[in-house]
């Protein structure tokens, strides 16, 4: 009694809304418009390898990597402390970590605009103690800060969920065998939490590479990341062909990266958010 008809509407849906759009994206990326008509050409990809665009790609990857490292450095201890057994009100604390994610991420980004301005709260407070106003907004710092702020919970939660599932008897065994807390951490907790770390890294790095909103609002239009480049091609310049080629490149980078980390993720289930 193997009925599969129930999936037919979905398969139909996939064909229209996943396969056809991907086909169109590929079609646009391998064609160029000339006055005489549309011709097949690899020009779009060739253009992407020009130094200026490679620099944009490099900058996107670097900023995303910095943000991911910051999230890891800030988030790992937090996950560790949240999972420790002597923490009171643990559920509330975890809930408090998730709560900001429920707020619209544009509002979360917008909040920093108010804080970082030259006449914003931080500079006003600094002024009170005699520090001249700093340029906090519209630079790399602001973009990284925005990314870390937005994506931090994505790092903490997977690590927390893996850490809190660790069989406590393992840790007790290590302690009984005479390991000091540092050794227990290095030899037991850290290796066991690696799958969570990997999925945390993916969940922060991926959206950080592709964002165009954070860099637009907090970078003041001058820190072009690859997402901004794509947006520009589609909305301002109108060069769909080049835009599609960049999108396709970005998709490949992400999917290859995912393939790389998914090996770790498969070993543990439920490390992600869902």
């Amino acid at each position, binding site marked *: 009694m193997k009925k599969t008809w129930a999936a037919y509407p979905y398969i139909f849906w996939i064909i229209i809304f996943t396969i056809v759009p991907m086909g169109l994206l590929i079609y646009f990326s391998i064609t160029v418009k000339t006055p005489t008509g549309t011709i097949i050409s690899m020009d779009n990809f060739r253009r992407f390898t020009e130094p*200026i665009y490679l620099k944009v790609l490099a900058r996107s990857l670097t900023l995303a990597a910095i943000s991911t490292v910051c999230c890891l450095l800030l988030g790992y201890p937090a996950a560790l402390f949240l999972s420790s057994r002597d923490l009171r009100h643990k559920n509330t604390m975890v809930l408090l970590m998730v709560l900001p994610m429920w707020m619209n991420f544009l509002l979360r980004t917008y909040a920093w605009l108010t804080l970082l301005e*030259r006449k914003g709260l931080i500079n006003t407070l600094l002024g009170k103690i005699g520090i001249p106003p700093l340029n906090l907004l519209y630079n790399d710092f602001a973009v990284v800060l925005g990314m870390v702020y937005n994506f931090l919970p994505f790092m903490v939660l997977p690590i927390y969920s893996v850490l809190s599932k660790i069989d406590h008897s393992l840790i007790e065994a290590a302690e009984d065998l005479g390991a000091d807390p540092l050794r227990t951490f290095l030899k037991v907790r850290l290796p066991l939490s690696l799958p969570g770390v990997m999925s945390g890294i993916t969940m922060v790095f991926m959206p950080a590479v592709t964002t165009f909103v954070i860099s637009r609002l907090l*970078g003041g*239009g001058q820190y072009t990341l690859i997402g901004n480049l794509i947006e520009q091609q589609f909305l301002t310049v109108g060069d769909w062909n080049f835009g599609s080629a960049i999108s396709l490149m970005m998709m490949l980078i992400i999917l290859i990266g995912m393939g790389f980390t998914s090996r770790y993720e498969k070993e543990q289930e439920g490390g992600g958010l869902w």
Partner: protein
Amino acid sequence: MKKGFFRILMVVLCISVLAVGCGKKNQVELNVYNWGDYIDESVLQEFEKKYNIKINYDTFTTNEDMYVKVKAGGSHYDILIPSDYMIKRMIDEGMLEKLDMSNIPNYKYIDSKFKNLEYDPNNEYSVPYMWGTVGILYNKKMVSEKPTSWKVLWDKKYAKQILMMDSQRDSIGITLKMLGYSLNSKNPDELEQAKQALIEQKPLVLAYVVDEVKDKMIAGEAALAVVWSGDAVYCIRENPDLDYVIPEEGSNLWFDAIVIPKGTQHKKEAEMFINFLCETDIAYRNADYIGYSSPHTEAVKRLPKEITSSRHAYPQEEDLKKCEVFVDLGSILKEFDRIWTEVKSH
């Protein structure tokens, strides 16, 4: 409990579907696509009430954004308000409807010096909406001497206090002016120099903005900004420390006009809307609210003296001597796209 949950859900679903359905009585809807902050929005509601036509109002930030969106298809606008050179381009590409001026009697109020301009020589496609210049808005408290040249935007003294305009035609145009060329230059050498100048300027720029500029300048977040004249008038009204200047190298003189794109289903209603915007009272309210200069003779008469005598909003002949109107550059536009992409990516 679970059943109850589902029942509630179905009810909510039905209500929302019904609500969506109800919104679409047989009312005509006009899709209007205009610049951000470019109308007194109460005017829209008045039109809706008066003619029982619903208006869907959307805004764009630059001519290029608007063009790309309309050209792509997918959106169906009935009213657009682009600038001169873009109107020319759209006429040439056959994207605009010819207007039936007998449906727009209020067209008679438009000052004749704004009619039959180069972008629409026989005035078949457009009705002027506003006009103005591009210049430098500066904060007197932060800039010691009154700027006279575009070069002040390249002055290291004001590093990270300069707001450039995130609009390719305007930013490249003023750079060409600064270098002493025409802002309609097609010469690859001159364009290359402009690109280098913009790249050189980039470290000094605080941000590339369009709509934020008003908020930022009023709040005193930056010392200098490239703005359109009407935004300058608005900002000076809010913050008297600000002043506006058209640099001596000359600048861009522009005209925005109302047009109807091909493919509209509601040409008659769109013309009613254009006529409505040309009513004296409405044109006056718009000009007063947004601060731009109106081509409407009667509306200008009604505006307060301090505005109409202000050289920011209504510049004299001599201020405009060196100003140029943008012309459509045809195929060289691709080069502008490329320069701008490279400047922003640098």
